[in-house]
């Protein structure tokens, strides 16, 4: 029996990898992939909490967050295509974006 700690640790590690990726990568698509990684790490947390509490709400939230992530992907990829048409590049340092 694997305890909840392991799932939470894995989720935290994946989330951190996602954050680091967003902060250091320059390709807009890779940054977007890292954001998706963050969201999916959270989904893992939600499911393990849900199982731990024996409560269904966490799993319901996962379905919503998956659909939100899908909608975000649609809009996000469209925006990245628009950027590509303007600049012929998806390197965010080349579109003069300020870094956060």
């Amino acid at each position: 029996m694997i305890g909840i700690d392991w799932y939470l640790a894995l989720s935290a590690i994946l989330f951190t990898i996602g954050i680091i990726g967003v902060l250091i990568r320059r390709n807009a698509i890779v940054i977007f992939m890292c954001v998706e990684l963050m969201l999916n790490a959270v989904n893992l947390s939600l499911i393990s909490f849900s199982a731990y509490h024996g409560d269904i709400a966490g799993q319901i939230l996962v379905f919503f967050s998956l659909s939100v992530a899908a909608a975000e992907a649609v809009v996000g990829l469209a925006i990245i295509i628009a950027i590509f048409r303007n600049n012929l590049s998806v390197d965010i340092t080349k579109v003069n974006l300020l870094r956060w």
Partner: protein
Amino acid sequence: MHDIIAFLPGVIIAVVGLIALLMEAYKKSADQIYGLTIAGILAALGVAIAALFGDSGTAFTGMIVYGGVASFGAVVILLGSLFSVVVSRDYLMEIDLHRGDVYSMILLSIVGMLALASANDLISFFLGLETMSICLYVIAGLIKDKKTGAEAALKYFLLGAFATGFLLYGIALIYGATGHTNLTEIAAVAEPTLMFMGGSALLLVGIFFKIGAVPFHMWTPDVYQGTPTTLTAFMATAAKSATFVAFVLIMSRMLPESDTDIWTNVIQVVAILTMVVGNLIALAQDNVKRMLAYSSIAHAGYLLVGLAAGTPEGFTGVLYYLFAYTVMNVGAFSVIAYYERNKGLDFTEIESYAGLGFKFPLMGVLLSIFLFSLVGIPPFVGFVGKYYVFAAAINAGLIPLAIIGVLASAASAYYYLRVMVYLFFKDSHKEYSLKPASLLFSSAVVLMAALTLYYGIEPVLPFSGLIELISSYYSL
């Protein structure tokens, strides 16, 4: 009351939004969709105003609240949306964006805002916020053939999605610590454990991002500058109001018992940073639209002062300020959009405003009214809003915070009055004429100016009524 009735404004807007999408698919003219949009928002606004004086409670098994705070939030959101949609037509026609899909996107984002402003559960909070944000990403990127528009959209989207990750992680940790997603159920069992505090902190980071508070404000000026001006007004008022109402609901319902002091201190620090940084950078702006973007950051700071107070009085002040901010800010953006419509003349820098006030007096005077109100000078509604917010902070013992707020808003007078100096006291050597404003546009702007004046002179009555509404809401 039936659940659907409790969320009727949102239902109306959702249905109208879908009809607008279908009409676009069947190639109806943009003017028809525009008319339908205004009719739908007016109907929803009527229902929301009626609900303001009705009873309050929860619906959809505790997922949303209605009446009280939620209804007031809906009224402010719909008012801001109504005015920004009405003034949009002339401006959007000029930049070839007077299209049906733009209006349906606006309507769908209003649905998200209404859900957000009545969220009583972290799930409905998350869904409302994301419905709103995803539509706003599209709106930010409407001008996709210009670099600024696409850049604004990309920046908003990447940072917004990044913030969503934090927000969702915060929700997951709160859920893990308490086993609930309902705000009141969380408040009942919450212990200040590491997991709960960490979750709340991440949730706050997500909210601070969405309201554009310093240090999470980096997207705001670029996005506001890259978006079509009248839709910037929509983003800066309706979207911000929705997020602030949700923030009030979370502060008052989820975090009241559990170590409010910590959150009060955090919000105080963020409020000070937001007011100071927003105002200081606005001082240095020559682009009027970007100046207003930084000023809207500063206004988020004043609103946070009321939230830092953490009392019902402070929350009421925040709600009233949202109303004031919405009316005067949409007004200011509309007049700027009126100038910007004349593309050949390029009214973006403040120098180009020289002499406009006497040449075209009506719009000059109206812009001055909105700017005076944004400064917070007495006979206008902006003063009343600021007064309530700062008074609540002083009554809650946050005197240094209130002093910094008042000083910051005094400094803000410089950049607002500078626009007026250019309008009325500088001469321009160019001869030109502006495109005439349509009757609908002028009357909407005059109505906003009238509201700015009326609620500045007659503030007492709506405010005491508001306090009653909120206290009845607290006795739920």
